[in-house]
């Protein structure tokens, strides 16, 4: 560790940190390589400024809503694949698994008289995702084939399944209103405001209950000012999103879906035994095993989550494009989510990463994609720039990792 200025208090001396102590600790963390969301937030601001200078349509309400809709599918898949990355594993099949999801929902809902009820179709498709993930997980854990190989095989095989399902149809146009509405319908302005306020209030409530229970147990707690700032920060961010989106078409429903999934999976990762075990397996598999954790079960569950989320992302992608074809699930659907998770700060070595990172990372990827598109650049240029950004993000991660090693935190 770096030099400690003052003698550290006994563990958990029931002191409430002062704001200055909190700020100092944060600064020490950043210097020693615990960057958190800092680089990505800075990155987003830089991206916004650069593109706004190049093209003043970037920061308009209309493009903002576009960004939400475009980010959503990749954010969903990225959140899923984070579970594999947290284990120190990888899932390369997410692209075509999402393709399978999109194609299945389109085929099951073709209004030819045999179509399933919408809800049933969703259940069938999500169950298919679950089955795919469990299959991957079983082969990886019980047979012992590395996840890279299993999911590489999956990449090929599920691509084949997409082609087989589409058959000679070439392109299937989505005609189900609910599925299309997912990415193309927008909330009423008033409803969006109510939701934003409710979310902020809920967050404030959770934070205060937590503070109270920690104080009651005599544990160190964050200063009230910091908690206030966090609540205000969330409220402000939601207010900006709602206000800007309402100037245009409104907040897309898919934005709510992504927000809900973010909260839900963050809860699972941080507040449940399963989430704790995911981090433990990623950090030290042998240690986790000796602590009595069923490592195989955790891994299978994670790969199941990856595939279910991929399928869900595929449905959203299909909804946005209003159709599926033989290319569904190819190209960006594989690499953008993994890149997004990594750009957000999730380590490929396992054990470090958050859901928030996946969302922020996806936002960065799509902002660049969108901004370069507005500037009228070709996809060639887009890929080169996006590749550069990915490399930059991983470089920042490697350097901060070195910082952690220097300060003994790696």
């Amino acid at each position, binding site marked *: *560790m770096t030099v*400690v200025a003052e003698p*550290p*208090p*006994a*563990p*958990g001396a029931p002191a409430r940190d002062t704001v200055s102590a909190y700020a100092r600790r944060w600064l020490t963390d950043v210097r020693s390589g615990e960057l958190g969301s800092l680089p990505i937030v800075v990155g987003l601001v830089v991206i916004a400024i650069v593109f706004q200078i190049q093209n003043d349509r970037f920061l308009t309400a209309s493009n903002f809503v576009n960004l939400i809709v475009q980010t959503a599918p990749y954010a969903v898949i990225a959140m899923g694949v984070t579970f594999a990355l947290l284990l120190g594993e990888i899932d390369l099949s997410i692209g075509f698994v999402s393709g399978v999801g999109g194609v299945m929902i389109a085929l099951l809902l073709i209004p030819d008289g045999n179509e399933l009820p919408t809800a049933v179709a969703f259940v069938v498709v999500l169950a298919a995702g679950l089955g795919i993930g469990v299959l991957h997980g079983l082969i990886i854990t019980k047979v012992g084939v590395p996840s890279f190989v299993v999911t590489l095989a999956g990449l090929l095989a599920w691509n084949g399944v997409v082609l087989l399902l589409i058959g000679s149809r070439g392109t299937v146009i989505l005609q189900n209103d609910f599925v299309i509405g997912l990415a193309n319908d927008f909330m009423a302005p008033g409803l969006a405001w109510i939701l934003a306020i409710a979310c902020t209030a809920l967050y404030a409530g959770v934070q205060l209950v937590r503070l109270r*229970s*920690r104080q*009651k*147990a*005599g*544990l*160190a707690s964050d200063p009230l000012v910091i908690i206030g700032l966090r609540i205000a920060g969330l409220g402000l961010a939601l207010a900006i999103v709602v206000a800007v989106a309402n100037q245009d078409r409104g907040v897309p429903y898919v934005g709510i879906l992504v927000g809900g999934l973010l909260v839900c999976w963050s809860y699972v990762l*941080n*507040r*449940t*035994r399963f989430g*704790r*075990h995911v*981090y*433990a397996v*990623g*950090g*030290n598999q*042998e*240690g*986790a095993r*000796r*602590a*009595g*954790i069923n490592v195989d079960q955790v891994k299978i569950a994670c790969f199941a989550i990856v595939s279910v989320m991929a399928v869900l992302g595929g449905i959203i992608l299909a909804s946005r494009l209003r159709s599926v074809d033989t290319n569904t699930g190819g190209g960006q659907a594989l690499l953008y989510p993994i890149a997004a998770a990594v750009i957000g700060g999730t380590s490929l070595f396992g*054990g*470090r990463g958050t859901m928030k990172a996946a969302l922020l990372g996806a936002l960065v990827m799509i902002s660049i994609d969108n901004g370069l598109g507005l500037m009228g650049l070709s996809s060639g240029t887009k890929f080169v720039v996006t590749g550069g950004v990915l490399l930059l993000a991983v470089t920042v991660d490697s350097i901060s990792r070195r910082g*952690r090693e220097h*300060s*003994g*935190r*790696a």
Partner: protein
Amino acid sequence: MTDTPVLELHGVSKRFGAVQALFEVDFHVSNGEVMALVGDNGAGKSTLIKCIAGIYPFDAGEVRFDGETVHIHGPKDAARLGIEVVYQDLALCDNLDVVENMYLGRELVDGARRLDETTMEARAQDTLRGLSVTTLSSVRQTVAGLSGGQRQSVAVAKAVMWNSKLVILDEPTAALGVAQTRQVLELVKRLGEQGLAVILISHNLHDVFEVADSITVLRLGQNVAEFKRTETNQQQVVEAITAGKLSKVPGQQEALA
């Protein structure tokens, strides 16, 4: 120190194929006693503790815990009896913080199956304070940032917080510097003072003589000597380790002198 042993082994043996790893070993440790287990490489120290911890079954012999005959079929059985092992590589997760590591695999949850962080943190602190571990600045820092001695302390605290009766430490000071070795030895002493039975495996006789109450010497899978620390010296122990009389050389009967 009480005289009824917590753990008693009578004539336990273990064979791996052609190798007789343990042969009719008698061993015991009592409440509040720090029993050092010493011996050269291959003497059977690790096999003995792995059998006690339930990783391997004994082939023969009797195991008595708290005076009753028990059969340990797996690590979970051992944990249920109150036997905890701190392995040499500690098995801590670097990316998790101190509290998370101490509760790993046994997390407390509240009614809604949500992790009960507050209770876990408070109890972890109590345990650490009870062991006078004062070198941690926060129980919410990740283990990656801890020194070797601090890690060992966390691993030991993790072992003792489950109402354990017997704590087995495998080479706890092997990779530590002078000051940190001192920290850990103090901790081992305190475990004994708190009434726990402790088995300490070590190559370092200096450490052994500092903290152990009794010393059991294994040689080639057999118990060749047992000493009270106050009644022996390092030379006697070294002699036992290198040339202790074996009751039986495989293939040949020989009376114990």
